[in-house]
């Protein structure tokens, strides 16, 4: 490579680069002699090499430091692997729990929470993510982790209420003033109504939507399979996750009604303006139980076990329950909650997953390969 360098203030040299110095200088050879100086037009490589050694060391140390920090797994740390709509809830819970734990005379815990699609999160744990606590959308996702031997098969009986400290249900979010007059599930299959729901194959929330529709049809003397088939003919977009569907409905203004988690619907109302959407509560819905569990195999010692136990029990404490109410989840213990937070939930007829024979039966029957959902699109 031929380069020009400045040897002294007045002398330039031109020749083949034979050596690059760390301070950015070059040594060139012009056929007869060698000269060293700074390049006239420093290239990218020269500029990088032009960093002082101290800076290089500092950058390297930072990178190594970041790498090591990621490795830190002390006994007073917890990783909670959760699903998408719980971001706001666990941000509040982690802060409240850490304060309480410290006040009880323990060292300050470091609690991290990871969010994503429930199924994908379960897969990460199965594939080796060292989560001590999982808080997912569906019991069947935790069942999959249990099937790999990371926690006992009977995990769901270890905590009260099927290990679900808070619950939610499925409601309709419609446009302001409810222009299509949607009151119940039956209205969704009316001519010209477009329904937004995520894909039950990729979204835990969408499975609850699907089962709630199924339950309504059963209770109202319709063939449930025909009803959901008709329902999905009114779906113009199948997003892969609950947040994606909310965006499609609220930002892209596609569709007349969004089937959503109750907490997600309230969040949309709060964040995007109450004057743009209304919540419609159908006559029948499903009790969605997002369960929590300790992943026994990922606990390193007794101290961490104690912390994980305390963390999950905190969710059941009056304080934790109040936080759940505040974030639009239906919880069990109203004693510490703001009465206004509790009062906003209308009573409705809720079926449970047990009515479908539990997830162990419902999952393969409806959402497995060739299940009732697949049959909608394969035309069988």
């Amino acid at each position, binding site marked *: 490579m031929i380069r020009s360098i400045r040897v002294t203030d007045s002398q330039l040299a031109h020749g083949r680069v034979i050596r690059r110095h760390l301070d950015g200088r070059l040594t060139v050879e012009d056929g007869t002699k060698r000269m060293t100086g700074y390049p006239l037009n420093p290239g990218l490589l020269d500029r990088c090499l032009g960093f002082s050694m101290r800076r290089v060391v500092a950058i390297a140390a930072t990178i190594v430091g970041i790498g090591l920090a990621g490795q830190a797994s002390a006994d007073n740390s917890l990783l909670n692997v959760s699903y998408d709509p719980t971001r706001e809830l666990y941000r509040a819970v982690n802060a409240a729990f850490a304060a309480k734990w410290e006040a009880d005379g323990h060292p300050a815990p470091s609690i991290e929470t990871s969010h994503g*699609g429930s*199924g*994908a999160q379960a*897969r990460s744990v199965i594939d080796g993510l060292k989560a001590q606590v999982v808080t997912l959308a569906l019991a069947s996702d935790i069942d*999959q982790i249990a099937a790999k031997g990371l926690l006992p098969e009977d995990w769901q009986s270890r905590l009260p209420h099927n290990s679900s400290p808070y619950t939610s249900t499925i409601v309709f979010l419609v446009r302001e003033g409810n222009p299509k007059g949607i009151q119940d599930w039956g209205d969704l299959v009316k001519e010209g109504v477009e329904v937004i729901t995520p*894909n039950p*194959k*990729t979204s835990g929330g969408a499975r609850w939507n699907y089962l709630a529709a199924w339950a309504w049809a059963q209770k109202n003397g319709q063939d449930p399979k025909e009803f959901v088939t008709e329902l999905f003919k009114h*779906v*113009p*977009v*199948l*997003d*892969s996750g609950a947040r*994606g569907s909310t965006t499609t409905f609220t*930002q*892209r*203004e*596609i569709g007349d009604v969004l089937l959503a988690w109750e907490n997600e619907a309230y969040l949309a109302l709060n964040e995007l303006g109450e004057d743009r959407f209304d919540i419609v509560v159908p006559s029948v819905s499903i009790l969605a139980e997002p369960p929590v569990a300790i992943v026994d195999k990922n606990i390193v010692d007794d101290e961490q076990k104690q912390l994980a136990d305390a963390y999950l029990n905190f969710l059941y404490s009056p304080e934790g329950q109040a936080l759940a109410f505040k974030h639009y989840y239906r919880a069990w213990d109203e004693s510490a909650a703001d009465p206004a937070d509790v009062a906003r939930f209308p009573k409705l007829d809720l079926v449970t997953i047990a009515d479908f024979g539990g997830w162990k039966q419902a999952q393969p029957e409806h*959402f*497995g*390969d060739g299940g009732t959902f*697949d049959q909608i*699109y*394969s035309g069988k």
Partner: protein
Amino acid sequence: MALALRLQKSPMPGFGLGMGITLAMLSLVVILPVVALLARGVSYGPEAVWATINTPRVWAALYLSFRLAFLAALFNLVFGSLLAWVLARYDFPGRRLIDAFVDLPFALPTAVAGIALTALYAPNGTFGSIAKSLDGKIAYTQWGILIALIFVGLPFVTRTVQPVIAEIEQEVEEASATLGAGRFYTMRRVILPMLLPAALTGFALSLARAVGEYGSVIFIAGNLPMKTEIAPLLIVIKLEEFDYGGAAAIGIAMLVISFSMLLVINLIQIWSRRRIGHV
């Protein structure tokens, strides 16, 4: 791809070290994952793989993915080459800026691209509202997928063709003209044959990229089974069902089809190189 090993010892030093690093990198980054995929398929059983692939929904998704990827690559072949020609041959204010813009699809996270395109082409977006007034729909249809695929594949053709155009000496065209060839004839018989191998490489890269594209398409596609469901989404769906074997089966199907397409493109390249001697 043929691995041509020279029997004669090259006078260039460093072959042993260079080749060692190449093979190690290639194995770690490319060959191992592909072998892992094939191994998963083998452990799943050839019949099970075929049973997974041979369903109307998988065929529909594969057909959609490869058809739209092909169309997008074809579009990029024509307009990417044109863009390269303009950038390499003409000097105009803002040329460097446009040159830099070409690389944006490389640099932008695909999810960002997908969301931006969806915002533009959704019925309430800038272009989508125009389409809506004409009773058309772009986002959440196959047109939306096509636009996303064109977006992610455009730089490949431009960046492979541009240096070749810059290399072609003006004298070649002048020689052609002095020998009596018209402009169109020169273009067809002199310029195009020289560009063809590079353009085909760009086409192949653009095609390969579009076939596997997930991040941007997922936002604009609508994802309706049998209509706008791409093959990579089916793989994700299989993974959500914890059906690793089924996911590998669709992955293998895509691998086989992609490989055959790239093979055909390589053969055309060899043929066109032979025809014009070298380049």
